[in-house]
């Protein structure tokens, strides 16, 4: 075998994807915390996530977020107030609350009737992708309702 043939044989086939690097394959999420870690890992610009009950208790958070009970209370208060604020515009259903600040975004979405999900994100984050991702994991997240 010539040197050229040896090089071609060693090179990856253009018709076959390269094997994923170690750690790139994520196991299927089993808990809400897994979902929040997955969300943070796979969506570019997503910085961390917190799941809270609407009455202000922490339910889960991505592993990179600080464990601060006040966060869940603030998320509940903000969501509760936003549900009232939307009536100014005649709204009936709160879909998203956006806190736009100098360091980026905080995005809040009601998850079912009893939960709220907050996402720390860069301003450039693909919000459509984030929402689609969250929708695909709602069943697992809502199974986390604090009892």
């Amino acid at each position, binding site marked *: 075998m010539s040197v050229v043939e040896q090089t071609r044989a060693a090179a990856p086939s253009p018709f076959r994807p390269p094997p994923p690097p170690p750690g790139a394959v994520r196991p299927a999420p089993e808990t809400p915390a897994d979902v929040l870690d997955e969300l943070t890992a796979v969506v570019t610009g997503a910085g961390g996530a917190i799941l809270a*009950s*609407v*009455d*202000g*208790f922490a339910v889960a958070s991505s592993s990179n977020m600080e464990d601060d*009970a*006040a966060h*869940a*209370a*603030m998320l*509940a*208060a*903000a*969501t*509760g*107030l936003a*549900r*009232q604020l939307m009536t100014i515009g005649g709204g009936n259903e709160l879909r998203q609350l956006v806190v736009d600040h100098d360091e980026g975004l905080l995005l809040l979405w009601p998850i079912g*009737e*009893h939960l709220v999900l907050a996402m720390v994100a860069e301003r450039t984050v693909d919000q459509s992708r984030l929402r689609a991702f969250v929708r695909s994991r709602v069943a697992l997240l809502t199974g986390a*309702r*604090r*009892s």
Partner: protein
Amino acid sequence: MTDHVFKILVTGPFAAGKTSLIQSVSQTPVVSTDVVTSGDESEVKDATTVAMDFGTYSIEDDAIRLLIFGTPGQPRFRFMTNILKGDVDIVTFVVNAEARETHPSAGVELRSLLADLRVPAVVAVNRCDDQDEAEKIARSLGATDVARVIPCQLIDEDSGREVVIEILTTLLERMEDDDEADDDGDETAVADDNDAERELEAVTA
């Protein structure tokens, strides 16, 4: 025309009757941020305030208008109290006489509130009909320097209105005191205050 607008803060521990007070007296639809409770709190009541309640109360064709802001009761929402207490004219601390287990923490909260308060405070002792008992509870909480202690039944609208009348009376007394302390006081303003007091007397008569 509104001559006087007062901001009232209604605060106190979880399930004391703060939202009931505002709902029973407000003359405009109450802005409420109640959500369903979970965990241990769901055994006490079904819904709880997570941000604020807001209601209004006016007398004499809106000559005096009260803007009533209610806080959540749980310590985890204390930041809302800190936000809402700015520029208040009077604080109303509501406590449930029957929920004795809440009194120690309510006392800590009340004493903390009174420590840096520059406006009058009243204590509304809910589920209590006896003035002496109400004052005893207020003293046990550390309420030694409050303008009034009011026994009340806040599930009853009339009782809620009586609390508001006591709040109004306290505010007008404070205005009188402030005017008397001001040597260069504006006589017109005093006259306005006297008018306001007469209006209040007409309402409460």
